[in-house]
């Protein structure tokens, strides 16, 4: 067990710490200028010919430039997504607010469907497998272990993940890259979205996003992707996706995350969520604060409360239907190179604390990302969060990519082909760990989940 907490603490309450925020007239003008530029950019984009062309037809037709004769994608796009067969395994709740929903912009039926999907994603004891790496990103992972990055390898690999025996017992949903939406399983012959639905796993998609650095902010970013988002979501919905995901990364550092970066990113997340719901997809909103840095746990708490608080306010102000959304978020952790040790209980307490400060009861679930944590650490922390959750009403679960998949890639080293059976076995074991953690039943080994300062780690390694 790590040493008892010895914190040179300031307040746990979300008073912004004395970060060196840029102040003064020059920065204020710059801030306004950037805001104005962003607003102008977005309004230009939404009035562009793409949006206008679609709007004119009034229906859900594709613009001509996207058609390709006889491609699987083309065939799918002419079909409607099928209704999900499985019913909610969650305890039934009264459909609240029937009388008071009159006049709201989403119809009662639209809301009911969004809520149904969100509640399914938030099934207790189940989580999300995030397999939404683009061909480039997964290509890096493949090449790192000597696997050639071909479309077929990507397809085979994802199929192995989806069809691992027992996976549906631990997974409520899978986030796909758009490419995967149009690939088929060679066991069922069906496209992956349909194949997943047959197994009781909801398919979702990460639409393409491009990072953009905010000028004058020392590297802070927003994600570009709102332009033509509605149109792309329509395509993905027709391909069978029932939810989408948007990730807005931020970092903690000197003067970061700045109010500007928070506002810009949270507004974008809220607008993305609004557009998703209008297109009939449940939005997973993902504010992701990086592990990078040497900040302590308390600093992380303050930053996370600030960010999440801004997110829910933006969502409410935009008119997002809260009951039909899911939060995907980083765990609150000290920075990777923080010099103070923390126990897994302290980290779990910090996470429960942050949720209780700002998360609306109305959102059914939280799926924590791994963000560089090992599976052992992530599972230890998630399980402890669930053990210490007291009256937290949300489903507290996982949406893991690297934590589940990096060990699988390691199995590929020195092999000629993808060792699919071996990978599948390991993946099945990992999924059990993950869902145990989501149920608060996973018991950490040793110092799993604790934060051990970098020097101490080195000394441990030397001693070992």
């Amino acid at each position, binding site marked *: 067990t790590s040493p008892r*907490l010895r*914190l040179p*603490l*300031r*307040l*746990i*309450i*979300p*008073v912004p710490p004395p970060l060196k925020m840029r102040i003064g007239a020059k920065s204020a003008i710059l801030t306004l200028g950037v805001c104005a530029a962003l607003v102008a950019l977005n309004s230009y984009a939404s009035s562009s010919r793409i949006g206008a062309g679609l709007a004119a037809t009034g229906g859900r037709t594709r613009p001509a430039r996207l058609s390709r004769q006889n491609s699987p994608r083309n065939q799918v796009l002419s079909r409607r997504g099928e209704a999900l067969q499985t019913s909610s395994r969650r305890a039934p*709740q*009264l459909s*609240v*607010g*029937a*009388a*008071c*929903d*009159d*006049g*709201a912009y989403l119809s009662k039926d639209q809301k009911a469907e969004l809520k149904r999907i969100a509640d399914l994603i938030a099934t*207790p004891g189940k989580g999300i497998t995030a397999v939404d790496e683009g061909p480039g990103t997964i290509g890096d992972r493949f090449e790192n272990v000597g696997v050639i990055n071909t479309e077929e390898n990507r397809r085979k690999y994802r199929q192995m993940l989806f069809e691992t025996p027992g996976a549906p017992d631990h997974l409520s949903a899978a986030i796909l890259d758009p490419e995967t939406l149009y690939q088929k399983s060679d066991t069922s012959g069906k496209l992956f979205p349909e194949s997943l639905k047959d197994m009781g796993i909801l398919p979702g998609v990460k639409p393409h996003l491009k990072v953009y650095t905010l000028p004058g902010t020392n590297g802070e970013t927003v994600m570009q992707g709102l332009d033509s988002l509605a149109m792309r979501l329509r395509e993905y919905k027709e391909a069978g996706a029932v939810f989408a995901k948007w990730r807005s990364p931020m970092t903690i550092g000197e003067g970061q995350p700045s109010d500007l970066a928070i506002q810009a990113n949270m507004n974008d997340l809220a607008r993305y969520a609004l557009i998703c719901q209008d297109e009939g997809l449940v939005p997973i909103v993902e504010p992701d604060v990086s592990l990078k840095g040497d900040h302590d*746990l*308390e600093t992380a*708490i303050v930053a996370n*409360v*600030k960010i999440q*608080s*801004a997110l*829910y*306010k933006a969502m*409410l*102000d935009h008119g997002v239907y*809260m009951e039909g959304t899911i939060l995907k978020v980083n765990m609150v952790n000290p920075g990777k190179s923080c010099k103070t040790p923390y126990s897994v*209980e*302290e980290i779990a*307490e*910090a996470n*429960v*604390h942050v*949720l*209780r*400060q*700002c*998360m*609306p*009861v*109305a959102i059914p679930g939280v799926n924590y990302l791994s963000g560089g944590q090992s599976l052992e650490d992530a599972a230890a922390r998630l399980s402890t969060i*669930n*053990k*210490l*959750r*007291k*009256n*937290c*009403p949300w489903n507290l679960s996982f949406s893991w990519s690297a934590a589940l998949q990096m060990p699988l890639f390691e199995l590929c080293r020195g092999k000629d082909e993808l060792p699919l059976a071996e990978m599948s076995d390991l993946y099945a074991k990992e999924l059990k760990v993950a869902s145990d953690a989501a*149920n*608060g039943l996973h018991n950490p080994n040793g110092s799993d989940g604790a934060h051990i300062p970098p020097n101490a780690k080195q000394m441990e390694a030397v001693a070992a």
Partner: protein
Amino acid sequence: CGRSQSRMGDHTTAEKRLRAICSHVFTKEYKHAEELIATAQTIASPGKGILAADESIGTIGKRFKGIGVENSRENRRAYRHLLASTEGLGKHISGVILFEESLFEKMDDGSLLVDGFKKEGIVLGIKVDKGTRYLPSTDGELYTQGLTDLDKRAKKYYDFGARFAKWRAVVKILPGKGPSNNAIQETAHSLARYAAICQNNGLVPIVEPEILMDGDHDLATAQKWTEIVVSACYSALRLQGVLLEGTLLKPNMVLPGASCKKRYTPADNAAATVTALQRSVPVAVPGITFLSGGQGEEDATIMLNALNQPGLGYRPWSLTFSYGRALQKSVLAAWKGKKENVPAAQKMLLLRARANGDANLGKYTGYAANSGEASKSLYVKNYAY
């Protein structure tokens, strides 16, 4: 991980957990944190609520006028003493809000008026705002004043024995428009400032953003504005460093406008209210003590009972009452200023307190429906007190 319907965690465990993360908070910079959390949880105890007896001199005068009693200091003392000396009141009343005059009031034998409340284990609270004024350049919207020297006053009240405070902000839904952004920001910001100052001086702030019933807006409109206003309040509270675990929220129930043509059932109103709260109130807040806002005594009890029925989804905060008019109308009518009527009046108070305490538990069966003034509406247009 049982997702039971329990509304509050055990507070010693919560304390320990918070302490584990930041022991520093309890010793140096936030010396009242433990007490604030404990007080808030005590007030939000199951089966109990708040008696709001903090009518200003002018307002209690209106009440007295209605029962033919002169608005003298003696009568005001006699009436509040009636409340304070009600035996058994502490069974269903966890806190009482008083006006400054009553807080410090002495009886003829030198004892304090509030001694009776203390004996019943009822936490003393104090109204600290100084009334509403018109917000310039708006269409009759209001702001609440009272921040000047609030730190000094709060300390004075704390030293005397008060442990919580109340500040009433008033928001209007202008026909076809709703509250202006100006009014929302002003409400949220001053409530947060009041709350921070109170906590620094040991008082649990009850945060009261009352959205008036005035108007013909429907239930959905009332719900939307409640969500936006309450969520703006919590943004401001977090920004100003308020310890949410040491606060209470006193919102309006979500109800249609007083002159709305459409009819809704208590269940409709309850669903709208709970949904609005689920979207805007953090789990860290231990209790929500509703204002009655012009509803008659029985209506207010029935609504509270409806809010505590199963099937409305997760409610991690206690949903209870902080009633003024809706606890006292029958009491005043029974008292009529006469000493010989005091026992009967106290019986009425106990009856309504018990009814609302049962409503907090979702167990009210309507047994108090025909007593006293239970069924009379108490709605007054453009209410200010």
